[in-house]
């Protein structure tokens, strides 16, 4: 297939890539732009490991053909401020780390949209990010901490 030239804004800077029109945004980010922080977990939009922001909204980059982001704004895990991640280190939000960048992207989006917590629980909002290690408590606790909420009782721990 003929290569297609696609320009978009990536983590605040303009980029242009020559792509196979069939390529997913996930592939373009990882294999062409070497932004390997975004992970592939399932390739069909179930696990959320490949979560990026498209015009500020979290999306599964495995479901987005790269040509669709032409002229749009994409942000990846590499754009986030690592200084704000302390609660996630402290509360056990990550174990193997394969789901983690996606988890952090969704968690950050919740932090930027706290009004959602009036109608949804953190557990509902995080349900698009599968984690096989933590059992989710470490993640939920971290999001609560990051939101400045007081952690709820967790037994004796």
């Amino acid at each position, binding site marked *: 297939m003929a290569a297609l030239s696609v320009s978009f804004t990536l983590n605040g800077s303009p980029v242009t890539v020559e792509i196979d029109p069939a390529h997913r945004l996930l592939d373009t980010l990882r294999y062409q732009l070497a932004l390997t922080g975004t992970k592939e977990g399932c390739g069909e939009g179930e696990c959320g490991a490949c979560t990026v922001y498209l015009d500020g909204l979290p999306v599964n980059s495995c479901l987005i053909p790269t040509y669709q982001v032409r002229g749009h704004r994409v942000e990846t895990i590499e754009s986030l401020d690592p200084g704000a991640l302390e609660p996630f280190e402290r509360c*056990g939000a*990550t174990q*193997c780390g394969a789901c983690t*960048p996606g988890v952090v992207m969704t968690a950050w989006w919740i932090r930027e949209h706290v009004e959602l917590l009036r109608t949804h629980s953190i557990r509902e909002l995080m349900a698009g990010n599968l984690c*096989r290690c933590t*059992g989710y408590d470490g993640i939920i606790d971290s999001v609560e901490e990051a939101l400045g909420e007081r952690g709820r009782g967790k037994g004796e721990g």
Partner: protein
Amino acid sequence: MKRREALAKLTGRERYVDDLPLQDFLWGMTVRSPAPRGRVTATRFGKDVDWSQFVVVDHRDIPGPNVVALIEQDQPVLAANYVRHVHEPVLLLAHPSRDSVRRAVRAVDVVIAPESPALDFRIAPAPDQIQYGPDNVLKHLQIVKGDVERALAQAPVVVSGTYETGAQEHVYLETQGMIAYLEGDVLVVKGSMQCPYYVLKALQQALARDETKVRVIQTPTGGGFGGKEEFPSHIALHAALLALKSGRPVKLIYDRGEDMAATTKRHPARVRHRTGLSRDGRLLAQDIEVVIDGGAYVTLSPVVLSRAIIHAAGPYACDHVRITGRAMFTNAVPFGAFRGFGAPQSQFAGERHMDVIARTLGVDAVELRRINLLRDGQTTATGQAIRDGTDRLAVLERALELSRYREKQPEHAAFNATHTTLRRGSGLSTFYHGAGFTGGGEVALKSRLRVAGRPDGGVEVLSANIEMGQGTVTVFTELAATRLGLEPEDVTIAEADTSRVPNSGPTVASRTTMIVGGLIERAADDLRRRVGLDDTARGGTVKQAIRRWHREHPGEPLLGEAAYEKPPGIAWDDKTYRGDAYGAFAWAAYVAEVEVDLRTCATRVIDFVAVQEVGKVLNPTLARGQVQGGVVQGIGWALMEECKWRDGAMANNQLTNYLIPTSDDVPSVRVAFLENPYPHGAGGAKGLGELPIDGPAPAILNAVARATGADPRAIPLTPEKLMELVDGQASVGAQQAAPLR
């Protein structure tokens, strides 16, 4: 201490195998058998592909024996002319374009002359399905204590039951993958794995290379749960064969569909109990038969079966026990290691059976466990005397308190009496898990480890045990720092590279902290002695002495060493299956509270309490995370994770229709530890990683039985299956049980 590599993982900077930069490489892929059994009569290459652009490897390209080294030498690297399961590897392809290699794999037609496959491990194979020994039994094991037949004949009450557990897919979030390339004449293989020395051994044997010509390096591993214990050897061999033939680096990464279809899963099992009891519920005889589906090759099934039968009688005292185990050959994709390693299957049956006994006898389920739990000085089924001083009744009592188990019973009764469609109930399991290799396994492993003194006065731990999320790097750092009085920053953990680290054994069997951690402590002591200090020297004194040693011995390595030594008083006889099966057991009591919606028959776990005694807890955040993750994996196995089979292979090999729990499917898991330091474990710790997968499924099904009055005997208890039970059909397990053979 916070997880050491947490920030790298949180920011996406951690480099997994598929993230590593690689120049001028080929993508590798596997052509697989379409049929469960038969002779390969042809491999046809489609006309629409320019095959001259591809590297093609078949069994004739294997320099050494065509076998993946493991317990038995029975599983080929690539099928030569006969296949025993769907998805068995037949050919390997490589090409610079991943899209091209994917299309090419679809263009190869492997033609099989089909033969009759054995596909149900529970029924005796037809004569034309026999493929292993006289009866397709891969392994037979038995534990005998006392005289079970006589005790059953004399028992006032006998309660029988049959229980079944399904396969479970690991769903580590990072799929399996390897890269292979030549560095001069040394073959380098890097990838996601739990056991670098297993991979090294497999490469050496099949590629006929001595160990100086092969180097295996573990990359950060995105979850394992046992799934990366034995299987990575296959992918490593496949990537290596393509790299050797092409002379170029090869990257072979499974996508999720291939990973779920072609790699191992938890062994399905059927367990039958025949239990003799006094009228008040004292165990007088336990006759147990455990049958597991091994799949088409032996893999690790004999040791999975071993752990299954050793744990089958539960943490209870009983003088007359007979446990028979069989691992069956079938033409299913081979089953393999998965967290718990047989113990979850046999303890699901045992703990569900305890509640069936309680209901049959009209005895309280708590009381039944209380009167039978092992007291110090009593013996397990293998005759191992338990003398660890742990108060197992206190573990149970703590779980009851934290869950408000007793108070909730009238609350549930009132709720169920008034609510039209919802039913609530609580269920209990008491269980144990032996840490480390079974029996003489740790002695046979001969694990070795080094702690090196660095010229700057810090130390480096050299071990083959790996981080896959469970916290090895953090705990190893803490153990070395604590032993030598150093700061965590003074300790580095070496990459698991077989050219640098000694073989400290596989990262499996809940052995890494308890056993390998103990080697760190002793190697640190040895290091201290080598620089002229005694075991009381700490901190700055140690650092100065290490620096001084390096000034006096420029360029020489400073290595403290330790090798595994069996704790005193441990004895095991592998022929009779009598003796001390494990150096230590961890003990637990879990309580699940469920809510069942009678309209959909969906079960929701609304509260979960996990209380365990695991020796000393070294890192509370990591330990709690292990328990919470194990419990949620257990909830998935109990209620939703269902492999659908077609010709012995997983048909629903997608996360779209093989469902694992999301954050919204599970409650917060409330965790408590009772501590009784184990003198032979690092820092007093016992193994922890597998214990939490043993208890959730029986606790949940016991809760569903309480809530609904149904009598479920099999997992996964999906809504469809529970609907059959509550719609008035009798218990599946009890009705279909055939006589014990």
